[in-house]
């Protein structure tokens, strides 16, 4: 009994550490092949690259934990980025514009939530439809052109391009979001409800959890995270791109799954997602550093995803 408990704990620990080990192995390999990789400046660079995907993937983690999926994040990112840029360009206070942008992201996400809960649509289809709609809306709003002339607001530039104590601001935002969402997911009842819904929706209803409300909030959260990512990208590119964020949903989902969260809901951790995003980021950055042609990069990325997921399965 004692013994088996220890075994179980060991197994669980390994389960949790699986993705971390994968990440470390990957980093060691890349470093051996190109020591530039491990240079602090490249690592910070890597973290900054990861931040956008990580932010989206954090929101996606909640969605997937409920057994859902959000394909619209890329379009939400583009639309809220464009709207923020538009507001700033037309003279609105940048801070206010960013706040409104995040609210808009939340509203776009809540629309998904309502289609799924009140409309009883499958998350895949609901967010596939809004993905198309939000992208179309972005193109209509921008007329297919990037929005520029965002001007010289320090604070807006700071969000995507600034440094604080030598650390890029997007990285700081990522860490802050991680801590907040970690507490929300693991230390507060909202997170408990998220797991409960994904684990057994009917029982959760009977236990008095307001399924529709929690789900809608979760999709709103996902939309908000996408819009934060959108603001960072807009700031970094000093312009809002109508095509921004295309196919980002796939990277975010991959990060969540690589981090050990199950697509059928109820199982997983946001820490895993962070690691998953770092694995993908390391792959992107590493393969570039190693000069692997972009065609082969795709093959390698696909294979690494398969191996990582298969190893995770084996362990169980």
């Amino acid at each position, binding site marked *: 009994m004692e013994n088996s*408990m220890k075994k179980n704990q060991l197994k669980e620990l390994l389960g949790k550490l699986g993705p971390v080990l994968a990440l470390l192995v990957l980093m060691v390999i890349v470093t051996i092949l190109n020591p530039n990789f491990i240079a602090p400046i490249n690592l910070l660079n890597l973290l900054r690259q990861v931040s956008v995907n990580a932010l989206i993937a954090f929101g996606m983690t909640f969605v997937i934990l409920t057994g859902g999926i959000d394909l619209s994040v890329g379009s939400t990112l583009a639309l809220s980025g464009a709207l923020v840029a538009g507001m700033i360009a037309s003279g609105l206070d940048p801070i206010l514009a960013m706040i409104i942008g995040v609210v808009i992201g939340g509203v776009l996400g809540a629309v998904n939530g309502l289609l799924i809960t009140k409309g009883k649509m499958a998350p895949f289809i609901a967010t596939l439809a809004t993905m198309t709609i939000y992208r179309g809306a972005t193109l209509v709003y921008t007329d297919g052109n990037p929005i520029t002339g965002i001007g010289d607001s320090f604070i807006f530039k700071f969000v995507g391009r600034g440094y604080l104590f030598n650390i890029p601001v997007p990285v700081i935002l990522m860490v802050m979001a991680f801590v907040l969402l970690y*507490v929300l997911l693991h*230390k*507060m*009842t909202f997170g*408990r*409800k998220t*797991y*409960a819904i994904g*684990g*057994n929706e*009917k*029982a*959760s*209803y*009977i*236990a*008095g*959890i307001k399924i529709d409300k929690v789900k809608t909030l979760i999709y709103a959260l996902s939309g908000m995270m996408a819009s934060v990512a959108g603001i960072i990208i807009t700031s970094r590119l000093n312009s809002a791109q109508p095509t921004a964020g295309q196919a980002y949903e796939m990277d975010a989902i991959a990060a969540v799954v690589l981090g050990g969260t199950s697509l059928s809901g*109820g*199982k997983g951790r946001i820490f895993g997602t962070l690691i998953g995003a770092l694995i993908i980021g390391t792959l992107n950055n590493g393969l570039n550093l190693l000069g692997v042609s972009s065609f082969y990069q795709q093959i390698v990325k696909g294979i690494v995803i398969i191996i990582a997921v298969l190893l995770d399965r084996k362990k169980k």
Partner: protein
Amino acid sequence: MNILLQGISKAFGENKVLVNVDFDCVGGEVHALMGENGAGKSTLMNILTGLHKKDQGTIFIDGKERYFSNPKEAEEYGISFIHQEMNTWSEMTVLENLFIGKELKNKFGIIQNKKMEALAKSIFEELTIELDLSANVSDLSVGQQQMIEIAKALMTDAKVLIMDEPTAALTEREILALFKIIELLKQKNVAIVYISHRMEEIFQISDRITVMRDGLTVGTMKVAETDVDDVVRKMVGRELSDYYPKKTARIGEVRFEVKNISSKGKFNQVSFAVRSGEIVGFSGLMGAGRTEIMRAIFGIDPIDSGKIYIEKKEVVLKNPSTAILNGVGFLTEDRKSEGLILDFSIEDNISLPSIDGFTVKGIIDEKAEDEFAELLMKRLTVKAQNKDISVGSLSGGNQQKVVLAKWIGIGPKILILDEPTRGVDVGAKREIYQLMNELAERGVAIVMVSSDLPEILGVSDRIIVIHEGKIAGEYPKSEATQENIMKLATGGY
């Protein structure tokens, strides 16, 4: 707290499930609610606790009219419901399960695990439950999960407690513990509604019995003023003479034999043989490993060592498909998740394991399939509008008959039945026993796993007892008694 339901009616679509039902339960009593599968017992309680909306009727609580819009509201008011279908979260820990929806938190909204643990420990102590609070529920036995459900309900300080078939998955020891708790609650003046198909325990613990049939209340009586036969008559609407119909099948040659099969950590060196026309009962405590043995024989789980013979020829049943080809049928203990495709029609369920036999040049011969399904439905007296309605809309007993029909349809030489009457009402039970006899008469070798001792004794020709994954011994029908079987099942003490 007293509850009173008056003139409750409810229909799901065209299906009138409750018609003008009256029911009441007062503080300090155990009021049993009985009736065939689909009589409407669970639905009535779901209406009381706000999961379903009534169509008509009035609900009084302590004399005042009162309705709940969801179960949580009812619970907060003091009415707890332990549901028939288990409402656990298998990927969450015991502690998390206990407190879902009512976690303790501090003023910053942070969950207070320490406080919750202390509270849970004290409840477990009271119930004499020994469980690791940090264990995942998926690692627990069904019985242990049921205990969590009970603990959950008691934690709320319920004034009214509804238990819908709470003992269906409990061991004898756990049942005893539960009955002690019920006694305790009665003394605390809690009103208890107790739903069960187990006649013995009803008479053991309840004060009053209400019988329902086809959505109507047939009558309410004091336990002291009635007996088993009376209750059964009210339930099924006719006299039910012998529960266990007499078996006349001739027992022939050995049809099926397993020799020394083992599976590490599950069972060890199990050997037995079944003859044609014979019914062999497998008894044992919950979790003794009976299901695991049968699953392994049928090829669902792997066997580490040992051999299986059918009609003296060695066979390797590496998966269910091979087992079926060799004439083995297996009715699993969990009909919803393993026995049926709930969205499929009765016909499609019945023909599924034999579907490859219904093809002409690769195309399904629908006429032959129709006739096949209709024949089997008639033979098993499945009560349904027609063969094309979905199985999910049938009552539990009728669903079980469909599962049986599909296995009879493969023309089995050997039929393994794991808890074939679990959750099935008395009337349907008797029909299932009758069918087993008919099959035996046709020479089928039958293995029946059951946790219901009277059933084992009433139906089997021979009884094998499993204890901790090993055969503890066996008795022919003539020598078997509840006492000697329990003795073997508990390891001889």
